[in-house]
């Protein structure tokens, strides 16, 4: 099997971007092949979203049971078998990978295991040549680290190693207070470790609405997690049975001792070894440059997902995959790409964090006149009844027309609630429609409507 006529499309990478794009391509009648060097599912299915959610769910269950006494639910001898927690997480990831392979078979997609590289008129996979009219680059990203924080898998880890490590450390320093950092902070702290999170920015979750990071830091303080914002990692001392991490803030530097150092400082694109330069695919700082329809600078070559940055979200990669494939099949108009202000972002520690659209500061910077409403969960019947009163919903709307510019949530279950806000953005609903929508009582979802009422100066329950 070789030659120009092999496939209409070869997808490099079977993560959430690549596999969804491949299935969509098959639906549209393109003869499609997928090349994956690891196994289907990508970081999301194997080393990210899915396995970490399994562990987070177990942590939340443990926290709930431990807190049961004040609600009249008594249990003795509550203990954690962390090795079993990790084992279950790996089982979930394995099932996920098999599920993707099944979907390839079901949709008649050829699956090639190996490392793919761009070639004129197609892709080379370990010496074999697959001809293709289109190539979709979806090779994803890997964990990054900082100088001096070389990953040894024993004392210094990234999330990749942490997801397989069956031992609970007594103490952890987490470098980086973004999504991955705060999720592992919650996991380790809930299962009993002494956790310190070090973040360079002034709040946790930099890039999101600043109120979210501040509220999360307060909730973490109540859980006994130390949060050092405005602190920069300096150096690492010793790697024998733990290490010292020196950090510097406005008030000078200090050294934090811990059994484990978790590095969560973002992700770097996997753009090496794809033959990008030879094929004329332009990159910037390693990220592939694309237009709104996900075309690269090389004819017939498209790219999506973590490889193009900067969203670095599984669902963004999937949505970009649809854009790319539909453009190839002439089903997508020019310029109708993915609007990043309609892509939700979710974080699964407790309290959960979720947002879609513009942060308040960004909306102001764009010159919008705003009406902002915030509704705390503690004022909501369902939140009190279920014992989850941390957090709030914040609605950022445009003053004159009520456009919902952004919705920012922190609290129990908000990663599910954000879907309603996403639909509101996509349908261009205004504050008026959100308020006119009857929300069931008692639910956590009422908070979105209440926050919108507050933005309009019409709050009922606060």
């Amino acid at each position, binding site marked *: 099997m070789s030659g120009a006529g092999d496939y209409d499309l070869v997808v490099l990478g079977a993560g959430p971007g690549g596999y969804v794009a491949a299935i969509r391509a098959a639906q549209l009648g393109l003869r499609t092949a997928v090349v994956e060097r690891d196994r289907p599912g990508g970081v999301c299915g194997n080393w990210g979203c899915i396995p970490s959610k399994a562990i987070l769910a177990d942590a939340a269950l443990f926290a709930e049971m431990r807190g049961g006494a004040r609600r009249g639910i008594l249990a003795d001898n509550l203990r954690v078998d962390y090795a079993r927690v990790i084992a279950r997480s790996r089982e979930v990831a394995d099932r996920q990978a098999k599920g993707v392979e099944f979907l390839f078979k079901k949709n008649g997609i050829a699956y090639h295991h190996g490392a793919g590289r761009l070639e004129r008129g197609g892709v080379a996979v370990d010496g074999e040549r697959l001809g293709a009219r289109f190539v979709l680059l979806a090779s994803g990203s890997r964990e990054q680290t900082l100088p001096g924080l070389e990953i040894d898998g024993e004392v210094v880890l990234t999330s990749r190693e942490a997801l397989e490590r069956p031992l609970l450390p007594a103490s952890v320093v987490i470098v980086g207070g973004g999504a991955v950092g705060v999720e592992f902070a919650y996991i380790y702290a809930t299962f009993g470790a002494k956790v310190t999170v070090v973040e360079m920015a002034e709040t946790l979750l930099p890039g999101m609405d600043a109120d979210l990071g501040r509220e999360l830091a307060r909730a973490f303080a109540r859980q006994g997690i130390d949060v050092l914002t405005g602190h920069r990692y300096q150096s690492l001392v010793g790697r024998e049975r733990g290490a010292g991490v020196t950090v510097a803030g406005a008030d000078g530097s200090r050294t934090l001792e811990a059994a484990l150092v978790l590095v969560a400082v973002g992700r770097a694109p996997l753009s090496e070894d794809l033959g990008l330069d030879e094929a004329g695919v332009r990159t910037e700082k390693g990220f592939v440059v694309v*237009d709104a329809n996900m075309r690269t600078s090389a004819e017939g070559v498209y790219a999506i997902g973590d490889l193009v940055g900067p969203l670095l979200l599984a669902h963004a990669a999937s949505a970009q995959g649809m854009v790319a494939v539909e453009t190839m099949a002439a089903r997508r108009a*020019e310029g109708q790409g993915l609007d990043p202000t309609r892509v939700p972002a979710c974080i699964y520690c407790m309290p959960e964090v979720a947002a879609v659209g513009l942060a308040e500061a960004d909306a102001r910077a764009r010159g919008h006149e705003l009406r902002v409403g915030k509704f705390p969960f503690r004022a909501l019947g369902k939140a009190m009844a279920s014992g989850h009163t941390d957090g709030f919903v914040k609605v950022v709307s445009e003053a004159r*027309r009520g*456009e919902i510019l952004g919705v920012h949530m922190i609290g129990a279950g908000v990663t599910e609630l954000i879907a309603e806000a996403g639909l509101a953005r996509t349908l*261009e609903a205004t504050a008026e429609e959100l308020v006119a929508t009857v929300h069931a009582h008692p639910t956590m979802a009422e908070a979105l409507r209440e926050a919108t009422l507050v933005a309009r100066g019409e709050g009922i329950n606060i």
Partner: protein
Amino acid sequence: MPVDVTMPKLSDTMEEGKILKWLKHPGERVAIGEIIAEVETDKANMELEAYDEGTLAEVRVREGESAPVGAVIAVLAAPGEGAAPGPAAGAGKAAAAAEKAPPVAKAPPAAPRAAAPAKAEPGRAFRPTVVRRPEPAESPGDAASVKASPLARRIAHDQGLDLARVAGTGPGGRIVQKDVEAALAARGGPSPAPAKPAAPLEPRPAAGNRVDLSRIRRTTAKRMGESKREIPHFYASAEIAMDEAARLKEALAALEGEYAGLTYTHLVVKAVGLALTRAPALNASYDGDAMVLHEAVNIGVATAVEDGLVVPVVRHCDREPLAAIVRQARGLLERARSGRFASDDLTGATFTLSNLGMLPVTEFAAVINPPQAAILAVGTIRETPVVREGQIVPGRMMTVTVSCDHRIIDGVLAGRFLRELKGLLENPLALVL
């Protein structure tokens, strides 16, 4: 389930298309990717490709007849289904109407939108045929029945804009915020649809007879008239020494490979692309009370075809290397010659180039292609005595003239653009570095 085949929208300005020829006939099998018909649009003749397989059950528009964008022009029966769908299989209202009166240009006003996917009859699979593209259908409709987002309605109401006159680009032709904003901009400025270029054209041969204009010619006539009426043009010219560019062209052409077929037009396209990044005001559009600076530098190259002029678009001329521009331009030219453009070959230009250098035209001024702000007219390269360091020597000179929209571009900006362009073509190494 039978599948409707609809008239696709193949260019920004296309409102209806004429079936030139059915290549498949009722009863014949159709495979995915097979060409089932040839369609004449306002821009070019294009092929209509099947995106579903099955048997052609029914043809609703005869050869030589036109149908509005979105109208059902044929029905495919799925493999295994009978070729002729009975009434129960869904020959509903649209089909019945079509049988009585074939959908010619006089289709009911709301037809283009009514044919949008969301309104497909229940029980019928709907698949757009070739490409689903924003609908600039200008048909007046009933404001209350218009599909529009709440935000779009709010803005339209504030601004006193009639939504029935706005084309929707959202799912199923729904009017969304950016459609309303585009319509508001168009109220004050030129229509946002890019179209015909400016260069003069060989006269049609028929003398003394009245000859119907081709669709391409009719669009050109309309757009050029609008441009000259609406846009205050001014013109600036520069003489460019092409000796170095000629040497570079010969040297590169001798390399063959990716530079095979390199022309002066390719060099000028690359030079204009770079010059526009240094004089970005010319890579812009006038938009009511704003000036829209385009990030992409996409250059439309006016190209003569049998029945008029088309403007295929070379993309990212600023950042694409010369070899890639040659490759793009070669593909476009081949498709222009065969009259079979891909769906986006003709859209998205931010600046236009009209080169008459292959004819004995020393210089000319072109008409701006709205909503672009400028167009460059390129004359022939001529051998002429020039004075260099006090000596009269033979030189190769080319005169270029840029036409600018004076509402957003002033003379000095045009002059700076010409200075950059001249510098790039006279020291052309930057074009390949």
